[in-house]
């Protein structure tokens, strides 16, 4: 390759993704964006995630989650219930640097992909297992979707806080939108993949056991730390003493004043009202004790404010204030445009639609491409051209239901 400074970190690295979970699919997405060649192995009727949610468009045939998770990947179909399908998977793994898999541990023997078998066959391969509760331990066969994993990691018990909790104190805890726990599981798998790649040259391959629960416990470490200090957190007591979500006349903002100067800025922003200048509110500990009273005033004041205006004026005074942005605002904001967060991606029946690449400015690909509408659209290119099988092999496998 020409100029190494333009080379993506994973250029030339082949990843075989055999996965139907959101976590492992997200890991494959990030690896693809980092420049890897990601070959997604699907069952002949396609990854079940293709059918999750309403289709983006009749011609598209897939929902938004699948479309988002599977950019810049090739799709091949294999029936791993048949020996031919398993043999081709073996050939793909032979040619890969990384194997991303979310098969339940007890099913791996049936598919010939136990960690030992794979290590014997491909000693240089990095085998990244991504499972809800990991590959070992008494819960390793447990099933777990986003909701379960969010609660298994500890944050589920602690949501919501603040205004939502005050309004609905008796409701069950509420989850974070979408696939928060599972995307974090996927990012954790990418982190581990890079770590293993860092020593692959010296150490060869290895088995990396990634658990979605483990990483969610890790990101909830503050609650574990608080426990060590003698506090068992719960959602009622965890709420900020004052501030938080405020309803304005045209939407919601978030305010959080952790430092004295931020509180003083907020008082100024409110126009130095008499109640806020009370000497009893000067000290942060006293303010904490009078949080309910402060909130009464804050909320009444916020109701008279316009979101854009109050955020701009507040930030100028050093007050941590932010708008609860709606999807259209994120897509169209000046900040978004300047940072080129979204790529225009052609989608069947829709023309070009904006897709978020990654949350960092770093060697991202020039182009994003949705995964093919048809599962196995890349069989000929990958199994034929790349693995070197003939067109008649491909036809025979398709006829036998192996691909």
């Amino acid at each position, binding site marked *: 390759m020409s100029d190494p400074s333009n080379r993506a970190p994973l250029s030339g690295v082949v990843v075989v993704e055999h996965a139907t979970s959101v976590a492992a699919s997200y890991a494959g997405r990030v690896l693809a964006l980092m420049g890897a060649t990601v070959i997604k192995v699907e069952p002949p009727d396609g990854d079940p995630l293709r059918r999750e949610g309403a289709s983006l468009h009749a011609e598209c045939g897939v929902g938004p989650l699948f479309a988002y998770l599977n950019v810049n990947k090739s799709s091949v179909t294999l029936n791993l219930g048949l020996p031919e399908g398993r043999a081709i998977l073996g050939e793909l793994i032979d040619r890969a640097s990384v194997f991303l898999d979310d098969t339940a541990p007890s099913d791996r023997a049936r598919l010939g992909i136990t960690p030992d078998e794979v290590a014997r066959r491909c000693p240089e391969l990095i085998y990244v297992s991504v499972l809800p509760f990991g590959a070992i331990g008494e819960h390793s066969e447990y099933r777990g979707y986003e909701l379960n994993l969010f609660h298994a990691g500890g944050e589920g018990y*602690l949501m919501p806080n603040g205004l939502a909790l005050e309004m609905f104190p008796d409701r069950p805890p*509420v989850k974070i939108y979408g696939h928060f726990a599972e995307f974090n599981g996927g990012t954790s798998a990418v982190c581990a993949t*890079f770590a293993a790649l860092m020593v692959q040259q010296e150490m060869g391959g290895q088995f990396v056991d990634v658990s979605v629960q483990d990483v969610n416990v890790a990101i909830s470490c503050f609650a574990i730390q608080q*426990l*060590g200090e003698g506090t068992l957190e719960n959602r009622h007591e965890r709420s900020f003493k004052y501030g938080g979500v405020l309803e304005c006349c045209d939407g919601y903002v978030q305010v959080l004043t952790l430092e004295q100067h931020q509180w003083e800025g907020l008082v100024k922003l409110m126009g130095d009202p008499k109640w806020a200048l009370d000497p009893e509110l000067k000290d942060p500990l006293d303010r904490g004790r009078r949080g309910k009273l402060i909130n009464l005033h804050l909320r009444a004041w916020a109701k008279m404010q316009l979101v854009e205006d109050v955020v701009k004026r507040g930030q100028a005074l050093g007050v941590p204030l932010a708008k609860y942005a709606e999807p259209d605002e994120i897509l169209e904001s000046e900040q978004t445009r300047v940072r080129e967060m979204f790529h225009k991606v052609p989608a069947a029946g829709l023309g070009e639609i904006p897709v978020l690449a990654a949350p960092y400015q770093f060697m991202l690909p020039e182009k994003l491409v949705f995964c093919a509408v048809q599962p196995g659209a890349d069989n000929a290119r990958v199994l034929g051209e790349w693995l070197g099988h003939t067109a008649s092999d491909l036809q025979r496998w398709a006829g036998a239901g192996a691909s």
Partner: protein
Amino acid sequence: MSAGNRGINKPLQGLRIADFTVHAAGPFSTHLLALLGAECIKVETSKRLDVFRKPHPVYGRMEAASFAQVAANKKSVQINLKEPRGVELAKRLVAVSDMMCESFRPGVMERLGLGYTALKAVKPDIVMLSVSACGQTGPERSYAGYAPLFGATGGLGTLTGYKDGPPVELRHVMDHSAGLNAATVALAALFRKKRTGLGLHVDLAAREVATSFIGDALLQFAATSTAPGRQGNDAANKAPHNVYPCAGKDSWVSIAVATDMEWRGLAGALGRPDWLTNPKYAEAGTRWQNRKDLDAEITAWTCDRKREDVARMLQAAGVAAFPSYTSQDIVDDPHLNQRGAIQSLNSPEGQSRKVVGPPWRFSRTPGSLDTWTPKLGEHNQYVFGDLLGLTRDEIDTLIREKVIY
């Protein structure tokens, strides 16, 4: 050949990080890299103590924390960056490091003379990671931000909450998700450096991390002009899908059913074969439409059972179910302890405490959590003396003159 024979025990062994990060997101990213074996040198100052070294009334902590997870496995040095000689020390530290991380507001490092260009001059192949709320560029680059704020601007907080309620503020998990992404992109940059010999400045915006969690919703909006909105615990194609009360105060179990096989497992485990033929529930589509009625029926079954029993019973029937874990449940969980995701760590005074271990298990080069939160400046002598070659007298002078401070 064993790992030891090849002389490598950890993935990032031999790699040094000059860590200028503060608060939560940045320090969590370097903590993860330290778990992977990097030598992480945390740069601090008495002029402005790290958040865990002082009381934090907003979180109800009236004194310094006795342990800070995100500072564990790190070394601590003191540098007063307000002093020109402090800035020089910082540059010398960067010159002997592979990577430099910071999480000040954009522009601060440049003002201090520690921007990427200045650091590249002392270490041409340095990888610099900048973690900020809104990124290093754009009209809102200088906006102040904590997790609830970048969760809001990034849209994740907006879409989180009960359908008929307000948005919900996101807490430390938002910070730490930004940190996880930061560690990942830092590793990508380090791997690229290993392959090409080239350094790089990586710019991570925490609000964009928040946005990455709603990528599917943004796609839906772009394609259909309708966004999903706040959905409570609902999920497309899954019913039941909720958190159900169990016996005991504030005790809950999460249950999620996506496939017909799981649905049959649930109906069997609850002794409700009638559900399989009831037109309200038999098909996935109608089941989703009638999910509130189904929730009520499930609640009647769970409410006087222990959440562990419910989870065990349903998992045995092939249904995804798990208790809503408190932090106490997490540290007591045998599975997490067996995996090392929860470990015991001894303080220098010999007190044992449950802490969070590495969230990955590598067969040949495992990460590890080895050392307690360092004392402020605990490694001044090692870093300034052994690594940078200052004499004892020079170090003492810099301490006296509040450069090492």
